[in-house]
């Protein structure tokens, strides 16, 4: 397979990227970086740093540095250049011209090149290989943040439109008490309680439904339909019924998480095949023994699938329900009021907290899944 594709003419992405880096650095050194007339040479450290980058680029396109040491050097130089460039950009906000943007593109290409090289590494040590596999998406995210920071400060985008990541970070660290209160109200009360009740009751109902085949045939198509509906719309009704505080949000979360869990659990319980059930019958096991020893373990991948879907649905439900009325605390409340007051950095800080909470919640459920369904083929393949 590889010999066939190798013989065909294919452009080498790495050398192409390296050529791009060189070109951009040359352009940057030749043109003004900041208005009115500031060249890259006026900041010697920056010029030297990007000089290094260009030299490394030349080595790449000539094919010298195609080894790990060269790759690591490239990574270190790229990171330090990014650091310097951000520092310089902050001293001339909004005055960036061609030279600066050429440097930004050079930086982006060099990060891309680094990731490209990193993905091509073949490490014998599995722990190291896993670390590198983890580092690649992290680098991608970091590149995104760096480009965001450079773009916003360089072009002088007003803070009302899009704040730089550094500003969001400052806001995040200075308003911890507010964020913690919102987090408590929305996540610890509404989301967790709603999630537990919704998933738990759906699980119990699923087992009841499973005992009555008539109900299973009748409820499953309806459950499938309801899973596709915009259930979030019940939020105003729940706010009307249960008041402004967290119980109404928990109610929305319960309704949103109920149907995915019901449908998945019921179809998971139907997952066993005739041979396995016959085996249980030859063991003379009763309904409950079959349920706990065979059918529930077989249903676990489905149940965890629902739990993972629900972990994100629950957070969305609670936040959107707060748009319809809430006491003066909560993530959804903070987002909608701070947007109105044009405090966009506070909104982003809140979103960062929500994203972190959502990811951690999801990650926790995924870890639990790995521990419970370690026997499943999809888990074995990943290990």
């Amino acid at each position, binding site marked *: 397979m590889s010999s066939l594709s190798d013989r065909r003419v294919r452009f080498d*992405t790495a050398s192409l990227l390296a050529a791009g880096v060189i070109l951009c650095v040359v352009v940057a050194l030749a043109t003004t970086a900041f208005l009115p007339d500031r060249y890259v040479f006026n900041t010697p450290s920056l010029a030297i740093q990007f000089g290094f980058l260009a030299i490394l680029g030349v080595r790449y396109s000539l094919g010298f540095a195609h080894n790990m040491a060269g790759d690591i050097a490239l990574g270190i130089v790229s990171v330090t250049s990014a650091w310097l460039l951000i520092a310089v950009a902050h001293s001339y906000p909004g005055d960036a011209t061609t030279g600066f943007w050429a440097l930004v593109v050079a930086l982006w290409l060099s990060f*891309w090149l680094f990731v490209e090289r990193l993905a091509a590494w073949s490490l014998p040590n599995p722990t190291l290989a896993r670390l590198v596999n983890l580092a690649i998406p992290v680098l991608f995210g970091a590149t995104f943040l760096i480009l965001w920071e450079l773009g916003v400060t360089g072009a002088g985008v007003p803070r009302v439109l899009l704040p730089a990541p550094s500003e969001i970070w400052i806001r995040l660290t200075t308003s911890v008490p507010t964020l913690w209160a919102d987090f408590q109200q929305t996540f610890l009360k509404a989301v967790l309680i709603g999630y537990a009740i919704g998933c738990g009751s759906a699980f119990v109902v699923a087992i009841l439904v499973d005992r009555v085949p008539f109900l299973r045939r009748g409820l499953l198509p309806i459950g499938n339909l309801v899973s596709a509906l915009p259930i979030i719309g019940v939020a*105003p009704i729940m706010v009307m019924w249960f008041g402004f505080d967290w119980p109404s949000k928990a109610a929305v979360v319960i309704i949103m998480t109920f149907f995915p869990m019901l449908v998945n659990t019921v179809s998971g319980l139907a997952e066993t095949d005739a041979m396995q059930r016959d085996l249980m019958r030859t063991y003379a096991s009763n309904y409950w023994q079959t349920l706990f020893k065979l059918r529930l373990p077989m249903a676990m991948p489905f149940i965890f699938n629902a739990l993972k879907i629900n972990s994100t649905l629950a957070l969305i439900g609670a*936040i959107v329900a707060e748009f319809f009325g809430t006491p003066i605390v909560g993530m959804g409340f903070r987002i909608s009021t701070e947007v109105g007051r044009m405090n966009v950095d506070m909104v982003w800080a809140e979103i960062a907290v929500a994203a972190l909470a959502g990811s951690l919640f999801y990650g926790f459920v995924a870890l639990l899944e790995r521990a419970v369904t370690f026997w499943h083929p999809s888990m074995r393949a990943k290990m």
Partner: protein
Amino acid sequence: MINTALASPRSTNPFAGLMSGTTGPVIVVVCAILAIWYISAVILNTPFQKEMYERANRGDVPVSQLVTDTLAQERPVLPAPHQVAQEIWKTTVEKKVTSKRSLVYHTGITLSSTLLGFLIGTTLGILLAVGIVHSRVLDKSMMPWVISSQTIPILAIAPMIIVVLNAVGISGLLPKAMISTYLSFFPVTVGMVKGLRSPEVIHMDLMHTYSATRWQTFWKLRLPYAVPYLFTSMKIGMAASLVGAIVGELPTGAVAGLGARLLAGSYYGQTVQIWSALLMAAFLAGALVALIGVMEKVVLKKMGMAQ
């Protein structure tokens, strides 16, 4: 599962045929839901109705009178199904389509941003999937972010996106459609990556023995294999897209659209209006998903892949 296997195949009950399929049970369950709805409407609306009687100094009201009154309140806690049906009939058939009170008008606005967002999202999702399948770097660096992008409660950003884009001068359809895009690209990307990778090794080898280029392999083998996956994920994407459009309408200050109807209804306590908008959204979701289902059947039949 166990019980169906043991069920006796011959039965003298004439309804057995109907009840053994899915139609019978579904009808029964729907009737049960309607019955529960009516009963809870009576129960939930009773306290307010009793208060009304007390104010009017009417001590002895027969139960039948109480029940009919609870089902005909103007702003009930839970409107009865027939009230919602009447409201939907009144606002769809009896109002002009261009009128701002017409539910068809609001549904059309939501539908247009849903479809626009869905189209952009599906295109983006397919392109991303093609990139991820063909590039190792994209696979390693993008895929984790595609997945974690959905753990971010993106609907929380919805008001922001709309306000920010409004400030830049972009308003109307596109900001709402962008939220729909964000929600609908994910299922399509994940499904298409799975689909494009679904050809078996033996088929890929066959393409190699034909000396097929990457482009030919993609066009003649990978893409046809991915079509069933595409339709499945498009159904999920469409439902997500509608949710995005509805939530996107909330922060615009309740101007137009089903989301705006929900918000206006909750401001003024018009429960019947909320429920009718909610049911309309449900119909819309069902119709859109069914439409994709029909398209799936037609396309798969033409491709000779239908079972």
